[in-house]
C-alpha cells in the first residue's frame, strides 16, 4: 500500500510512498448529540520519515512542512490544498482532498540510533469549508 501526500499553496510539497508511512483519517462529530449534528469537522494525521539525501539527490520536502506549521494565521498561506492518495495494486483506494487545510500539530523526532527522523503532521479542514472536502476512490491508477 503506497501513500502519497501533496500540499499546494505558495509552494508545492510532494511526499511519496518512500516517505509517508501512515495516514489516519477521521471525522470530528459530537458524540453526545441526539440527532445529526451540524457541527462537522475532519482531521487527518500523517506520519512519515525524514530522509537524509544521499548521492547528490535533492533533500525531501519535509522541511517545507515544518515551515508551513509556523505560518501565522494572518497569512493566507496558512491554508493550503492537501491531497492524500492511497494506492494499492494499481487501484486508487482513496483520494482525499482538503482544499483549505491548516496545521494543528507538527512534530519531528530524531534519535542518534536511527538513520532517519520521523514526523507527525496533524491537519484539519477549515470548518466553514467542510463542503469542499472531496472523498473519492475506487478507480484505477498508479
Amino acid at each position, binding site marked *: 500500500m503506497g501513500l502519497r501526500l501533496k500540499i499546494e499553496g505558495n509552494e508545492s510539497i510532494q511526499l511519496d510512498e518512500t516517505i509517508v508511512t501512515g495516514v489516519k483519517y477521521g471525522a470530528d462529530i459530537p458524540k453526545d448529540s441526539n440527532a445529526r449534528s451540524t457541527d462537522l469537522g475532519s482531521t487527518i494525521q500523517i506520519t512519515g520519515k525524514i530522509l537524509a*539525501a544521499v548521492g547528490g539527490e535533492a533533500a525531501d520536502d519535509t522541511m517545507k512542512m515544518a515551515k508551513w506549521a509556523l505560518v501565522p494565521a494572518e497569512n493566507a498561506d496558512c491554508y493550503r490544498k492537501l491531497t492524500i492518495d492511497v494506492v494499492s495494486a494499481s487501484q486508487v483506494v482513496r483520494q482525499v482532498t482538503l482544499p483549505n487545510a491548516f496545521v494543528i500539530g*507538527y512534530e519531528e523526532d530524531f534519535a542518534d540510533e536511527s538513520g532517519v527522523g520521523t514526523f507527525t503532521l496533524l491537519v484539519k479542514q477549515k470548518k466553514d469549508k467542510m463542503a469542499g472536502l472531496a472523498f473519492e476512490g475506487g478507480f484505477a491508477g498508479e
Partner: protein
Amino acid sequence: MGFRLKIEGGAAIELKEQSITSVRFRTDIPQDSNARSTDLGSTVEITGKILTAVDGEPFDATKEIGKWALVPAEKADCYRKVTIEVIAASQEVRKYTYPNAFVVDYREDYGDVEGVGTFRLVIKQKKDKMANIAVEGGYAV
C-alpha cells in the same frame, strides 16, 4: 544521525554528537480550533548524556544548562539563542534556530550502574517572538 546544540547568551554552551541522543521538535497549536489559530507555540525537547571528563579534558557544558534552567525571569539572560543541527550522511537535514528560547523543564538522572548521567532539556520560543524561528536544512555540510 548526529546532533549539535549551541546555546548563546550567558555562558557559551556547545554539545556535540557524543552527548546528544535525541531531539524532538513540536508545535503547540490548539487542536480544537475551527480555523487557523493565532495561538502558536513551539517546543523542543533534547535528551543526552552527561559525560565525565577523562585524561584531563575539559568538562562538558551540561552544567551550564543546569545553571541556565535556574536563571530567574527578571534577568534578560533567561532568554538565549539556541541552534540545533541534525546531520546525517554529510547533509544538514535540519537547522533550527530559536533566537529567544527559555527553559520550561530541565532534568538530570544518575544511577549507580551507568557510567554516564542523562539529561532532558525542554525549551520554548518566547511566544510573541514566534516569527523569528528559522528552519533551514537540505544542504551539504
